[in-house]
C-alpha cells in the first residue's frame, strides 16, 4: 500500500468519524418517484388478523361503551405485539382500554390486560399491583395467577411464583399448572423430573397450538440448560413446526444455535428478521462470528436503535444492550454496569449469564457475587452458568 493511498484513506475515515452526527437522524430527503416504496407494514390490510382487528375497531366505534368488545380488541392487539415483536400494538391496546382504566375502580378484565401490558414494558411492580387488584376482586381468575407466577419467576422470587402456580391446578387445565410450576422447578434443581412430566403432558388431548408452543419452548430451553442438545433440538423443531409465529421462540432457538456454534444457521434463520432489535442482535452476533462485513453495518444500526430507545426516556432493552455492549462493542466495563442495572429488575438465566460474562471480562469478580449467591441459594441448574462460575477464582477451591 503506498503512502498516498494510506493518507487518503486516513483522511476519509477521519472525516467520516467526524461528520456522521447520528445514524438515527439523517437528513430528510425528497423521494424522486411516486412509486418509491418508503415503508413496509408488518400487517397488510387484507391479512385475516388485520381484518379481525378492523372489525373489532369498527364495532367499538359504533358502541364505544361496550367493554367486551374493547377487551377482545385489546387482547388481539397484545397477541399481535407478541407475534410481530412490535410494542406499538401494546400502546394501542392500552389506548383502547383508557375509558375504563380512568374509572376510580377499573373493571378487573381491563386491569388484567394492563398488567400484561406493564409486564411487557418491564414495569413489574406496577403489573403486580394491578394483579393484586384483579385477584382481590376475582380470586378465581386463572390468567391473573398465571401472569403473577410469571412475573415472580422473572424477578427470581421462586417461592412466591410456586405459590401463584398452585391455584391453577383447580382453575385451569392440569397441563397449565404443570407447565407453570415445571418451568420454575426445572430451573431450580429439578430439571430431570420436570422434563419428564412436561414431556408426558404433551400427550394429553385438547391442548391448543399456543399451549403446545409454550410447553415445547419451556422444554427446549430446559433441555438446552441441562446440556441435552439433541433433546433441545427436537423440542425446538416440534415447536417451530406448529406454524405459530413467535418472536420469543425464534430468539431462543437462535441463542441455542449460537451456543452450538451453528452460526451459519442463525444467519439463515434471521436474515429477514432485522426489524426486531432482539433478533437483529443475534443475527449480528452470528455475522460477527462468520466475519461477514455486514456485521459492521448491523452493529452501527443496533447502536443507533439503543440510542433512540434511550431518547424516549424508557429502558426496557437493558439486557439486550448489555449483551450488545459486551459482545459487539467489546466494552466489558459498560456492559457490566448495564448487566448490573438489568439484574436489579430481572433475574433469568440470561440476565445471570450476562452479568457473569461481563464481570469476567472486566475482571470485576466482586460484581458477580449477587449472581453466584443466587445460583447457590436456588440450586440453579444451568450448564453454561456453572461453567462461568468456576472461572471465578474463589469458586475454584
Amino acid at each position, binding site marked *: 500500500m*503506498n503512502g498516498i493511498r494510506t493518507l487518503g484513506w*486516513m483522511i476519509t475515515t477521519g472525516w467520516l468519524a467526524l461528520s456522521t452526527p447520528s445514524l438515527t437522524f439523517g437528513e430528510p430527503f425528497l423521494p424522486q418517484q411516486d412509486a418509491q416504496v418508503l415503508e413496509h407494514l408488518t400487517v397488510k390490510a387484507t391479512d385475516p388478523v388485520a381484518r379481525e382487528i378492523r372489525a373489532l375497531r369498527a364495532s367499538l366505534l359504533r358502541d364505544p361503551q361496550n367493554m367486551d368488545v374493547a377487551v377482545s380488541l385489546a387482547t388481539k392487539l397484545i397477541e399481535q405485539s407478541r407475534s410481530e415483536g412490535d410494542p406499538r400494538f401494546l400502546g*394501542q391496546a392500552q389506548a383502547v382500554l383508557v375509558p375504563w382504566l380512568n374509572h376510580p375502580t377499573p373493571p378487573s378484565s381491563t386491569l388484567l390486560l394492563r398488567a400484561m401490558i406493564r409486564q411487557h414494558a418491564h414495569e413489574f411492580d406496577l403489573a403486580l399491583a394491578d394483579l393484586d387488584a384483579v385477584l382481590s376482586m376475582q380470586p378465581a381468575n386463572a390468567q391473573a395467577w398465571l401472569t403473577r407466577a410469571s412475573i415472580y419467576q422473572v424477578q427470581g422470587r421462586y417461592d412466591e411464583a410456586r405459590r401463584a402456580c398452585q391455584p391453577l391446578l383447580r382453575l385451569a387445565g392440569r397441563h397449565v399448572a404443570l407447565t407453570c410450576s415445571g418451568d420454575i422447578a426445572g430451573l431450580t434443581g429439578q430439571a430431570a423430573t420436570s422434563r419428564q412430566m412436561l414431556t408426558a403432558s404433551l400427550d394429553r388431548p385438547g391442548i391448543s397450538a399456543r399451549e403446545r408452543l409454550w410447553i415445547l419452548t419451556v422444554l427446549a430451553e430446559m433441555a438446552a440448560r441441562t446440556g441435552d442438545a439433541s433433546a433441545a433440538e427436537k423440542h425446538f423443531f416440534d415447536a417451530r413446526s406448529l406454524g405459530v409465529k413467535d418472536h420469543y421462540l425464534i430468539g431462543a432457538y437462535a441463542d441455542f444455535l449460537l451456543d452450538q456454534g451453528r452460526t451459519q444457521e442463525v444467519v439463515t434463520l434471521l436474515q429477514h428478521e432485522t426489524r426486531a432489535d432482539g433478533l437483529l442482535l443475534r443475527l449480528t452476533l452470528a455475522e460477527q462470528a462468520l466475519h461477514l462485513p455486514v456485521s459492521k453495518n448491523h452493529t452501527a444500526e443496533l447502536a443507533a436503535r439503543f440510542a433512540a430507545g434511550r431518547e424516549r426516556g424508557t429502558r426496557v432493552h437493558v439486557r439486550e444492550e448489555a449483551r450488545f455492549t459486551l459482545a459487539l462493542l467489546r466494552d466489558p466495563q459498560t456492559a457490566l454496569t448495564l448487566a448490573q442495572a438489568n439484574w436489579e429488575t430481572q433475574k433469568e438465566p440470561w440476565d445471570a449469564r450476562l452479568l457473569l460474562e461481563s464481570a469476567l471480562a472486566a475482571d470485576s469478580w466482586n460484581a458477580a457475587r449477587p449472581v453466584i449467591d443466587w445460583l447457590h441459594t436456588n440450586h440453579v441448574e444451568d450448564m453454561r452458568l456453572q461453567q462461568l462460575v468456576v472461572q471465578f477464582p474463589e469458586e475454584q477451591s
Partner: protein
Amino acid sequence: MRLILALAMLLLSTPAWAHKPSDSLLSLTVQHDRIEGRWDIALRDLDDAIGLDADGDGAITWGEVRSTHDEIAAYALSRLTITSGETHCPAQAPHQLIDNHTDGAYAVLLFTMTCPSAIETLQADYRLLFDLDAQHKGLLRLTHEGDITTAIFSQESPTRQFTISETSMWNQVQQYAHEGIWHIWMGYDHVLFLLALLLPAVLRRVAGRWEPTPDFLSAFWEVLAIVTAFTIAHSITLGVATVGLIALPSRLVESAIAASVVFAGISNLYPALVQRRRLVAFLFGLIHGFGFASVLSDLGLPRGSLALSLVSFNLGVEVGQLAIVAMFLPLAYGLRKSWTASLRGSTYRSVRLASSLATALLNSLFEHPADYRHNRAKYYRNSMSRKN
C-alpha cells in the same frame, strides 16, 4: 376460561424483542415572533391514524404519502397547539420530506408558526396519537438562539411551558463558536479545499523533483502561511456579507466553492500553481467566506449583538480548522517519504489523488437533490440540535 387459553403464551418471560414503541420527533426553533418547526412522524403511525396505504398492499409509497400531505399536515398540526402568552400561533406547513429513522420511514413535516408578537413564554400542548397509542411519546427539542431545551410529551403530561429568555453573552459566544466548529467539520467542502492545498506542504520542489521537507518546522511555517491566508480572506467576506454590504446568490457561492476544491486538487499537478498556494488560498478563501455567511444567516442573527455572534462564529470556524490542521500536519509529515517515492514513480498517482478529491466533491454536490442541498446548513443544524 377462553381468555386463559388464548393468552397462555404470554406467560413466557418477555424480554424486549422489538424496536422501540412509537415516538415522534418535534423540533421547534424560536426566532423572535416566528417558530420554524420540523416534525418527524412515523409513516406506520400515520397509516394507523389516517390511512396512507391507499391500495392496501402493505407497502407505503411516496405517491401515497405525497397525495395525503394536506391530510397529514391537518391531522398533525391540529394536535399541536402552540400559544405565545395567551395567543394561539397558527401554523403553515407547505413542505413535506421523508427521513429514515431506526424503526422505519418518517414523514418530515416542515412548518412555520407566526405569533402576533415576540415570544416570551411558549406553551406547547401535544396530543398526537395518544388516543390511538397510549405509549406514544413526543420528543421535543426547543431551540432559541442556539440554546436547546428538551422535553418529552406523553399521555400523562401533554403540556409544557417554556420561558424564552434572552441568553447571556457568554452563552451566545459559546453557541455561535460551537456552530462555527461544527460547520467547518460538517461542510466538508472547506476541509477538502484546505487539505488539497496543504498536501504539498510537507514536500518541496528541488530541481523539478519532489523531495520530502527536511524538517518539521519548515512544513509547519508553510501550513501556517496557507491557513492564515485562507483565514484572513474568509473572515473579510464573512464580515462583509453578514453586515449586508455584498449579497451573492447562495447557489453561485456553493458552485464556486465546489469549483475551488476541484481547482485546488488539480493545481497540485502544476508546480507553478503549487508555488502560489498562498494566493490561491486567499482568493478562494474570499468565496468560502460567503459560504460561511449563508450558514450564519440561517442560524438567525440576534438583533443588537451582531458583531458578537459574527466574531464567535468566526472563532469557532478557526478552532475547527485548527483541529483539522493539527491532525493533518503530523500525519502528512510522517508519511511524506513514502509519498514522494510514489509521486516520483509516476505522475499518474498524483493525477489520481487530484481526481479523487474532485470526485469526492462532485459526489457531495450531486448525491442530493439540489433544492435541499441549498438548505443544507439549516437541515444539519436541526439534526445537530437533536443530537445535543
